[in-house]
């Protein structure tokens, strides 16, 4: 299916750094923080792409760059082949119609003074889409698709009358009401109780099936990514470490960091079910971490002569699989298959 291979969204060598002001009380020296370092990604049309990383990995920054809340310092981001950092005015507005975001915090992402209806209809008003009864139908239908039924009851309520899970569903409805081509879901369940995550996941899948929208799912949970995503990229400290299909990355992880993430997942008492990779050092090595591989201070299998000097680059390991590890050569898994 070659026509589907053209990526809908691409990151080309994207770098983003922040300058932090020094603080007397925090003891922080002024300096630069690299949120993203030469990130390359290609997201295919219609897929759910997972960006998995812990805090400080840069995954949220990547999402913000896509929706133009910020612009990259270097590199290009392309939607359907067109670079987005140069967009302004009307063309930027048209871009917003195609690319939307579901925010992380359902308690803060809805204007407390607006009713649910007002919050969801707003994008339609901004872009002048439909009117009158049609517009109203469209909003109510989207609220219902997001799992809030009957939509009329919810439409008249205010955010503080809804639970966190319900608010997040409103956020999904709002993001989808424009029927965008691409949606960034930034950790949509991290502020909710674990037991409510499944609801949100299923709604997202439902929405994808119905509207054919491409999704970037940002999360810290590999398990959630496995459930939702077709492909996954693992990101650590601004560097993409591994890319591949969800099942492959999880059952045959190539990068020691991915392996450490898998080790850290709960086994629910079934300790023999997964191999233990043991790629994490108990205490970090104490070196200035601005040279070499970002994972070096914590990597058990790292070789100092190599890993502390060179920055690994994302290279193809097997077809469809990419790894950024200096120890991986053509599919060979360092440290064996786990013991």
């Amino acid at each position, binding site marked *: 299916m070659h026509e589907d291979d053209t990526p809908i969204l691409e990151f080309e060598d994207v770098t983003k750094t922040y300058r932090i002001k020094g603080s007397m009380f925090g003891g922080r020296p002024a300096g630069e923080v690299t949120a993203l370092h030469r990130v390359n990604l290609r997201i295919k049309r219609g897929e759910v792409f997972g960006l998995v990383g812990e805090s400080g990995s840069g995954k949220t920054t990547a999402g913000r760059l896509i*929706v133009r809340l910020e612009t990259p310092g270097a590199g290009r981001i392309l939607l359907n082949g067109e670079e987005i950092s140069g967009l302004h005015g009307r063309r930027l507005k048209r871009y917003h*119609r195609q690319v939307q975001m579901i925010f992380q915090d359902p308690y*803060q992402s809805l*204007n407390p003074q607006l009713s649910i209806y007002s919050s969801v209809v707003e994008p339609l008003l901004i872009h002048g889409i439909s009117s009158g009864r049609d517009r*109203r139908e469209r909003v109510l239908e989207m609220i219902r698709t997001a799992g809030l039924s009957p939509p*009329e009851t919810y439409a008249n309520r205010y955010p503080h009358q809804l639970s966190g899970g319900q608010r997040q569903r409103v956020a999904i409805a709002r993001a989808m009401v424009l029927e965008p081509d691409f949606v960034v879901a930034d950790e949509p369940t991290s502020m909710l109780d674990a037991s409510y995550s499944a609801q949100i996941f299923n709604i997202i899948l439902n929405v994808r099936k119905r509207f054919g929208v491409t999704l970037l799912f940002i999360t810290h949970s590999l398990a959630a990514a496995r459930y939702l995503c077709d492909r996954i990229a693992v990101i650590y400290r601004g560097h993409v470490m591994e890319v591949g299909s969800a099942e492959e990355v999880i059952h045959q992880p190539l990068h020691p960091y991915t392996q450490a993430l898998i080790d850290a997942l709960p086994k629910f008492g079934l300790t023999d079910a997964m191999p233990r990779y043991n790629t994490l050092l108990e205490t970090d090595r104490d070196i200035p971490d601005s040279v070499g591989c970002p994972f070096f201070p914590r990597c058990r299998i790292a070789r100092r002569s190599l890993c502390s000097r060179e920055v690994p680059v994302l290279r193809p390991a097997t077809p469809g699989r990419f790894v950024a590890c200096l120890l991986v050569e053509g599919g060979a898994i360092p440290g064996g298959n786990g013991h």
Partner: protein
Amino acid sequence: MANGQPTRDIRAQRSHWLAHFMEGWSVFIQNPLGKGGIVLIVLFGLMAVCSVIPPWIDPMYRPMTGVDPDILCSTSPSLRHWLGTDFMGRDIFSQLLAGARIAFMVGVSAAFMTVVLGTAIGMTAGYMGRFVDTLLMRLADIVMVMPTLLFVLMLSALFGQLNIWTIVLIIGLFRWPGVSRVIRSQTLSLKQRPFIEAARVAGASHLRIIFRHIMPNVLPLSFLYMTFRVTSAITIEAALAFLGFGDPGTVSWGMMLQWVWKTGHMFRAPYWLLPPGICISLITLSFYMLGRAMDEVLDPRLRKEEEGS
């Protein structure tokens, strides 16, 4: 969907506002300060409204021009004149009622102007940031340190007696910095909130964000500050009138005090001196109590989620 749906939902939306209001009201009324403040303000409101009654009963009760033909000097309270008469034989009680009307007019108008100006400037400074912010805040600093009273005194020295509305205008123009500071910091904190970012991501223009998202969240604070401004406006007007710089054509409580003093009845006619003094104090107190009680209502922490979150 049936034809009747839209209207029913609009009605539901309005009734939600009512429910919202009733909820705030119940909190407000349970607070003793709120109760006290409301009672006093209603009392003064009644006074203001009733100020039209005495002249209607008998022209001698007209506060400014109505003199009692039988009494042409200051007398103590009697059946005909519940609070007595002033030095010209005018009824003090009707003057008091008229003063209430003036107090409301001055207080509310000046406060309204202050708040509108302060909110607009504060929101602009907070949202635009950088150069505009610095410029506006420096302007606020300059205006803030200028003494309102002194300025009015200077103006009236230059231009003679000032009209009441001029006074209101000046009070309004001089008191906005305080409001603008508060609104600005509120705007700054709102600017970072995710729902503002969500509006940006949806493609909203700056203007839309300011009017649709920031303003509604900032207005409750504005209203709160308006109650404080009312008291200061009334006090300033009273001070001006007392010092003899008020509008001689209006009967305000401050003006009444001025007449007591100027005609040498300060220590001779307590029935004339006390009522306006007490009224000024009480109305100031009542708006202050109102403001403090509203504080509790408008505090977003009160907006609890319903059961089942």
